[in-house]
């Protein structure tokens, strides 16, 4: 736990100083909403289209942050320092996942109000508590899978290309479940039936991929 806190704290401190990930993710999301706004030529979205626009945008914005998750270690040499330290390698996975969840929550705090401003006419704020639960469960899944795959991609020359290729297929279930859980919340009138089932799917995904990442991360970090 000591190492997890130390690594996550270091990551957040570096991000606070450099502002390299979260602002880029937020700017990307806002820009994408603008493109959808004009591309679809619609002032208002609801139901499955609104959910789809929201989750595709959040997923692609998340990829920017995931791509940079291990960059400081790679470019500044800290990887060897961490790998040589007498800590469980999984501390790195947990810390990186934790830092990424913070990035994603920060992204959503900016992106969701902007999304509502561009596309939602009414009822958005009533859906926010349940929407927060959906995004949190989706964030955990994205963060765990993202941290695991970023640790693989960072060792390759084409990491910017490799990461989305590896990540997107594995996160299809997250997008399906998150969009399905969000669809009734962005419908008029607000409809919460069926949300629980998709929340359970997201929780199951988090559990399965969390355990998988925990099991293989030591191996991924080996020479």
């Amino acid at each position, binding site marked *: 736990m*000591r*190492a997890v*806190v*130390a*690594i996550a704290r*270091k990551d957040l*401190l*570096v991000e606070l*100083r*450099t502002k390299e990930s979260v602002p880029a993710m937020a700017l990307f999301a806002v820009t994408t909403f603008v493109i959808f706004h004009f591309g679809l030529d619609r002032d208002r979205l609801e139901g499955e289209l609104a959910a789809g626009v929201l989750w595709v945008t959040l997923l692609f914005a998340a990829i920017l942050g995931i791509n940079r998750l291990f960059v*400081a270690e790679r470019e*500044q*040499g*800290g990887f*060897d*320092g*961490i*790998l*040589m*330290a*007498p*800590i469980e390698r999984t501390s790195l996975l947990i810390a990186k996942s934790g830092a990424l969840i913070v990035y994603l929550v920060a992204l959503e705090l900016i992106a969701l109000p902007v999304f509502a401003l561009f596309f939602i006419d009414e009822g958005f704020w009533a859906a926010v508590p349940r929407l927060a639960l959906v995004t949190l469960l989706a964030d955990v899944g994205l963060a765990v899978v993202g941290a695991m795959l970023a640790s693989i991609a960072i060792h390759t020359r084409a990491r910017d290309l490799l990461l989305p290729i590896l990540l997107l297929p594995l996160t299809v279930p997250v997008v399906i479940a998150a969009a399905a859980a969000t669809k009734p919340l962005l419908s008029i009138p607000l409809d919460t039936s069926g949300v629980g089932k998709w929340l359970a799917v997201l929780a199951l995904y988090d559990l399965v991929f969390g355990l998988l990442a925990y099991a293989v991360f030591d191996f991924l970090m*080996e*020479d």
Partner: protein
Amino acid sequence: MTVPVEPAVEGSQRAGAESITYAVALDQVVRHYGERVALRHVTLRLEQGRTLAVFGPNGAGKTTLLRMLATLLVPHEGELRVLGHVLPRDAHRVRPRVGLLAHEPLLYRDLSGRENLRFYARLYDVEEPEARIAHLLESTGMTTRSDEPVRNLSRGMAQRIGICRAVLHRPELLLLDEPRAHLDPEAAAMAELLIGARAGVTRVLVTHEIEHGLAEADQVLGLREGSVLIDAPAARLDPRDVRALYGAAA
């Protein structure tokens, strides 16, 4: 071409059963990167408390050897023991007892020197970290610049912080790759207390400074294209023997 010198440790002492008494013991270690062989059947013994200088031209396998001792690379053949433990099996027992000063100082540029040291102190669970950090910064003359981001420091100053990081957890085995690189004479003298012979720990020193390396070392390993060409006590070697490793470039 270098003529092989007699080994620093007699053949009868090379049995694997005795390697537990050595800080570093390699038996026929091979390491390759794809098709390229970086180390070819390297056998080596280094007693505790002694200093091994490793010489060789670029690509000789020096850094590979250092990274294997640091638990960052695994041998593909042969047996490797560090501080009595077999690697990679017992890497978790070795890591708290080894310090590495590599080409890069392993520091985060956006954190200050002090923040970097605090970070590593947490990873190594260093006792009384603030006092230890203050002592090391004082020892390297970096106290006044320790709160600046590392990116603002000169390469030599970053190297001084890197030295603090390498010895922060009081390692028993120091792995030093060109430790005096970028240091001015005053800084090199300061660093001597932490990573020099007076530090009183086992050291593996990779260097191209032949005279200095020979003066520092008890034992010398000369590598070329991954093969051991010199394994001898430093006192028996002439700088010309080592220069011959470098061929026409020497």
